[in-house]
């Protein structure tokens, strides 16, 4: 049975969720989360209702929190804790809704109406509501909608979101995992292209004789223009493992070797996870793979893998899943957890027919792709720094007479801008609408200040023509400021029409510290990647999207929480990436310089992001590992990773210069821990130098903070902790924290020391789970400001104690434990 706990947070669906016509979209002030992490809310939800009207309070779970497809029918026990009463407000209806990951209603699971529940006294109300069974997506959500109404004169109600909601949904994976003796199974699924047509039936126009049909794969397609790409899932299991009756899962897996993802705070992204699945061959019949098996005059020769590869040579980049679970009787797929990868390559068949399928995580897309995407447009003409420059001979209110050396060709400068660089009328700019070569007189819109013979000027193009501009973004479509780079110059453009890229002022040239340059015909014009005053997580999302990974595969909610908790406006990014760079290099740099990590979580099947920091209150209960529940432990000190001073060079002078050279940056901040360098401590200097393409002068506070945290984190030697546990205790993810207490890590008195460890890697090997982590400084108590209504420290729960309390004058709490630090 899965139990949910009401919370104060409002990250899951907000007011958008509902069912049976009841939602929180209009009147709601009480949209809250509820989730499986047992961390109850503490702040009251107060709703006001006018006489004769209704209002709604709702609780919604996170997408994927249930993570089961078969939701059992049964009784939902729903509770509501009334802390501020009303004599005129009653609870009328409760709805249990199933919504998809986007909070769109899918079904009403159960409801009760006509309650007229009196709320004039405080206390918890409990309702048992029958819910129907549901066939859900793994990412579906539950939502609980409470509908209140008020009589005259209306009033307010206070609800404390601290109650549990019991569901009939059976947590079968947890039950299986926590069973002492359990069976394990691993299943590989490959999603490969498959034609949705039937041979020779419209739209397929192939017309070969019976027995010569294709195999419904592109490689053998006889009517490629009408190939209709769908997906066929091929499934393979461990040899000997129990498999579900009636499902074709070929027991060909002889081994699965995994190199799990490993996040590295020094790099910003994780080492890519990798799995090598070795599968044996089988001289099986072709009946399940060949749709036209029955018409073949002779059975297919060869064995399984040879035929498989011949028919599916385009496997690279397709999705693959490793499903790890605990088979039970009757079979229950809900005991399985899926890890999502992409197919990297298939090695073999070897002499014995076996193959090895190499799977990698989708961060590989970022290794293969470049940002900005290379664009191939070329200038169709020379494009100079200026088309003419000099001192005007004279001017009128609507003309300027250029120097004698200017072009003698009529209309030569039409459409270009003349910019007054000095003298009378300085800094005025006008577009030339007519030019008479014989007189050198250019006609412009009326000057604010009429130019004269003291005025110096530049005549410049405000548009360029490419041989093909179809690859470039149109600002009118994207709504963004768009930039191109030519040579070492960056130009902002404002319009794209056909093959013409244009801008309205000469000041759009030479952006991001670059200078105007002359460019020759056939020079390449490159679209730039330019975030302007964007949150870090928005830039990261844009970078991931740019390698063709959709938002569905990004933990946008988690990113938003990290952005709110730890980053904010001082980390807003404005920069220009003028030429193509490996996408993963940019992601790594941005994460590293914002003290965060990004990784692909095969289990969540999303890119996840976390700022390296203490566990925020309410995140989760920190698991604890001791010598009683660990099978193996290794602790290695990482002396080589320590440093005492850190430098950050940032704010590039010109974005087209080499970012690896410090002298191309305008700003630098250093943080030196002189205590750490003193003779009584480490007695040495260890320097860390960083250059950032993303941070500028508006990020000064962020850079200072980053350096401070970096030294605090790294001045002392960290330890790398490797532990092995039984699946029984496995209930967390990479980048979570756990407390580690073992006789392998003791204090000066030889007593076991509890340290908080950042999980950097998890390797689920079926029978055992290997976990790697880094010791952190987060074992100290960091102060987070709690909401109103919290009890004193002595009465607080362990979860509440994650917030700050004031210590005594000795820096200790009432129970003698250490006081809280403030970050």
């Amino acid at each position: 049975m899965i139990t949910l706990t009401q919370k104060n947070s409002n990250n899951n669906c907000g007011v958008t969720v509902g069912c049976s016509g009841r939602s929180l979209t209009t009147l709601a002030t009480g949209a809250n989360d509820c989730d499986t992490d047992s961390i109850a809310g503490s702040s009251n939800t107060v709703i006001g209702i006018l006489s004769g009207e209704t209002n709604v309070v709702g609780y919604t779970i996170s997408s994927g929190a249930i993570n089961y497809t078969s939701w059992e029918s049964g009784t939902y026990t729903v509770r509501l804790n009334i802390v501020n009463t009303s004599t005129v407000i009653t609870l009328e209806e409760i709805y249990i809704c199933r919504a998809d990951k986007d909070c769109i209603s899918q079904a009403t699971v159960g409801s009760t109406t006509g309650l007229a529940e009196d709320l004039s006294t405080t206390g918890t109300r409990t309702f048992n509501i029958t819910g129907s069974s549901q066939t859900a997506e793994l990412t579906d959500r539950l939502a609980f909608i409470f509908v209140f109404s008020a009589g005259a004169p209306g009033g307010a109600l206070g609800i404390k979101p601290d109650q549990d909601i019991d569901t009939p949904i059976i947590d079968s994976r947890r039950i299986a995992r926590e069973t002492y003796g359990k069976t394990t199974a691993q299943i590989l699924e490959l999603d490969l292209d498959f034609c949705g047509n039937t041979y020779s039936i419209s739209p397929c126009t192939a017309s070969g004789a019976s027995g010569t049909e294709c195999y419904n794969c592109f490689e053998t397609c006889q009517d490629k223009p009408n190939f209709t790409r769908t997906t066929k899932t091929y499934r393979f299991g461990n040899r000997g493992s129990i498999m579900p009756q009636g499902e074709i899962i070929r027991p060909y897996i002889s081994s699965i070797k995994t190199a799990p993802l490993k996040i590295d705070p020094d790099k910003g992204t994780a080492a890519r996870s990798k799995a090598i699945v070795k599968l044996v061959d089988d001289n099986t019949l072709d009946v399940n793979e060949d749709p036209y098996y029955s018409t073949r005059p002779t059975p297919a020769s060869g064995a399984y893998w040879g035929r498989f590869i011949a028919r599916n040579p385009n496997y690279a980049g397709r999705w693959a899943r490793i499903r790890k679970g605990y088979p039970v009787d009757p079979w229950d797929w809900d005991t399985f957890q899926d890890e999502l990868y992409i197919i990297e390559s298939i090695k073999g068949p070897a002499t014995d027919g076996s193959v090895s399928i190499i799977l990698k995580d989708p961060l590989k897309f970022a290794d293969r792709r470049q940002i900005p995407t290379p664009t191939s447009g070329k200038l169709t003409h020379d494009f100079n720094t200026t088309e003419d420059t000099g001192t005007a001979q004279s001017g009128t209110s609507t003309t300027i007479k250029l120097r004698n050396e200017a072009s003698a060709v009529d209309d030569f400068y039409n459409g270009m801008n003349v910019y007054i660089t000095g003298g009378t009328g300085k800094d005025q700019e006008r577009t030339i609408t007519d030019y008479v070569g014989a007189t050198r007189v250019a006609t412009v819109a009326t000057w604010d200040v009429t130019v004269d013979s003291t005025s110096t000027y530049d005549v410049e193009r405000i548009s360029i023509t490419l041989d093909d501009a179809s690859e470039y973004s149109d600002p009118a479509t994207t709504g963004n400021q768009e930039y191109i780079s030519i040579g070492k110059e960056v130009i902002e453009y404002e319009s794209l029409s056909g093959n013409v890229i244009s801008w309205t002022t000469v000041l759009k040239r030479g952006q991001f510290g670059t200078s105007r340059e002359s460019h020759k015909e056939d020079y390449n014009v490159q679209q730039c990647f330019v975030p302007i005053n964007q949150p870090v997580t928005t830039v990261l999302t844009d970078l991931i999207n740019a390698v063709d990974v959709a938002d569905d595969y990004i933990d946008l909610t988690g990113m938003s929480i990290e952005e709110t908790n730890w980053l904010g406006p001082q980390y807003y990014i404005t920069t220009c990436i003028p030429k193509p760079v490996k996408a993963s290099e940019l992601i790594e740099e941005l994460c590293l310089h914002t003290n965060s990590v990004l990784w692909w979580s095969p289990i969540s099947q999303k890119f996840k992001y976390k700022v390296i920091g203490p566990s925020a209150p309410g995140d989760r209960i920190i698991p604890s590992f001791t010598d009683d529940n660990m099978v193996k432990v290794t602790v290695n000190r990482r002396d080589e990773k320590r440093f005492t001073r850190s430098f950050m060079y940032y704010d590039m002078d010109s974005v087209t210069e080499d970012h690896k050279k410090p002298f191309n940056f305008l700003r630098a901040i250093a943080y030196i821990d002189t205590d750490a360098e003193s003779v009584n401590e480490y007695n040495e200097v260890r320097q860390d130098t960083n250059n950032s393409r993303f941070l500028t002068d508006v990020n000064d506070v962020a850079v200072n903070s980053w350096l401070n945290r970096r030294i605090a984190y790294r001045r002392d030697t960290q330890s790398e902790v490797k532990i092995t546990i039984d699946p029984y205790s496995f209930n967390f993810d990479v980048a979570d924290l756990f407390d580690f207490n073992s006789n392998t890590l003791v204090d000066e008195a030889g007593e076991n020391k509890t340290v908080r460890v950042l999980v950097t890697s998890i390797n689920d090997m079926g029978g055992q789970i290997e976990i790697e982590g880094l010791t952190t400084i987060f074992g100290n108590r960091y102060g987070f400001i709690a909401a109103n209504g919290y009890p004193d420290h002595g009465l607080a729960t362990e979860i509440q104690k994650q917030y700050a309390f004031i210590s005594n004058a000795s820096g200790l709490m009432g129970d003698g434990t250490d006081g809280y630090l403030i970050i």
Partner: protein
Amino acid sequence: MSQPTIIYQNVFDGTLTASGTATGFVVDNIKDFRPFTYWKADALTATITVDNGTAVSCDYLLVYGHDLNTQGATIELRGSTDNFSASDVLVKTITPTNDDNFAEFFTASTAYRYWRIQITGTTVPTLAIISAGLKLTIPSYLDEGFDPIGRTPMVKNNRSRNGHPIGKVIQFQEYEQTLKFPLVTWTWVRDTWAPAWEAWLKDNPFVFVWEIDTYSSELRLITIDGGFKTPHKAGQWADLQLKIEGVYE
């Protein structure tokens, strides 16, 4: 006590005609001796019919990997001389009381040109292997040392650093035996065993039944690991030795 038996010869190894097949299933899956490929009819009553060209004999029916009991279904083996036009003879009918694999040996063999499997009931079952034909009976009893139920779990036994047991995870249980049949005749080895070896046993899975009368549920889907040995014994005798392996189910 019955003699050890090998099941591989199958009258349903020819061109099969199913009354109807559910989407995603193929009828030929019942004859491949692979427990992970299935046939499922589209409706009941369902039949699978085969024409062997001439009359062929059956003295057993094997069903391996099924949910007949769960689905409340009955399986019948029927024979015919005219493709079930006028001739339709019920040879065997079985309504399993569980979903365990089973084999039924007939008291006498019976021969027909057309053979049919018929499934009746209300809910359509899935079936992995159906085989009927002439069994291969070993003319010798197993030598001492044979272990019909021994098994080796592929297991990870987890104990804490303090020594306490905290969990045990099994991948599967392996069934592995070295079979020794003492004193079979050279005539049987040459005329019966060797042809069976070449026809099927050397490179295909088969079912081994060590004692059908007393332990009918102890049948194993196995393959031979390596080859076989037939060391000569005094007179016209030899010992047949082979190593088998499979999954203990």
